[in-house]
């Protein structure tokens, strides 16, 4: 089977501490991770393609 997430190895997401950004890219996405004050994760996605001239 191709492309199964478990084949990539089990992972843990690691959002930053409260108020801190943890940035990455995924395909055409720019991703910014945040941690809300109550500990819940918030992830903001932007289409990187849009920013290219």
């Amino acid at each position, binding site marked *: 089977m191709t*492309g199964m997430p478990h084949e990539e190895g089990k992972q843990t997401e690691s959002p930053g501490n409260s108020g801190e950004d943890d940035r990455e890219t995924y395909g055409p996405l720019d991703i910014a991770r945040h941690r809300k004050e109550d500990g819940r994760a*918030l992830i903001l996605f932007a289409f990187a393609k849009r920013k290219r001239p």
Partner: protein
Amino acid sequence: MSEQRFNELRGEPVVYAVHRQNRTFLPAQERCPLCPTPATPGAPETEIPVPTFEIAVFDNLFPAFSSPEGAAEVVVYTDSHHGSFATLSPERAQELMWVWRHRYAKLGARNDIQYVLIFENRGVEVGVTLHHPHGQIYGYPFLPPVPALELAADERLGGCAVCALLARELSDAERLLYENDGVVAYLPYAARWPYEAHVVMRQHRPSLLDCSDAELGQLAEGLQRLTRGYDALFARPFPYVMVVHQAPTDGRGEGHLHVEFYPPLRTAHKLKYTAGSELGAGTFIGDTLPEDSALALREAIARAG
């Protein structure tokens, strides 16, 4: 924390999430938790504490599942309170496919998650509690009954059931709704709902992770053509439950990426209820033939463009 029990008579898990009883229910726009937080000093903070965004995903405040026994996330499609999946720009819809793919990869990689379900409930008829355009993702700590049935169908048919059904629909042709290079949309031969529709990857793709960039764009296009057609069908916002079906993430079975829509309307103003036969016997009774519904929906999709 939710409690999971096993219903022996039905052979299926039941989840109790009693904290969800008090979740936010149809707030006015000024109290919408999915809108961005205005830049105005002192403005009350929403779930998304920035003045603008494209797509936001966050842990559900009222989760049915939570770590270390699953996940429940909210996916906000836009910072605009109005509109729907159908009215997103094509670029935003394509971006959403990538967001779905990212969350499937990340949640599916967790040891405590065996199945990732991406879905959207649209309309009060299917129990939506927030009107802001959004969907949800559940990471189940077990393989739920419906994907298990799909794996059983693969075994029964001796290969990918979705591939076999797609070939039949393409051959019959009378229930086809829309096609592009990447997807085929049809109203299934044995649909349970009057206007049920499946948007199926033309090639065998177990999950979003197996799709090319072009296929993700074609999937977004197919989903938007269908949902715009739904809204055109009765000239009203068309309620539906939209569910992305793909491979379990625990390594069991393969699956075939497709998106199923379960709309409750049977006419512009009448609902198809799950009642005695559907709930008590598990047998859906239809008031219309899929071929007739497909004709009307196909025309609506063409009209809506």
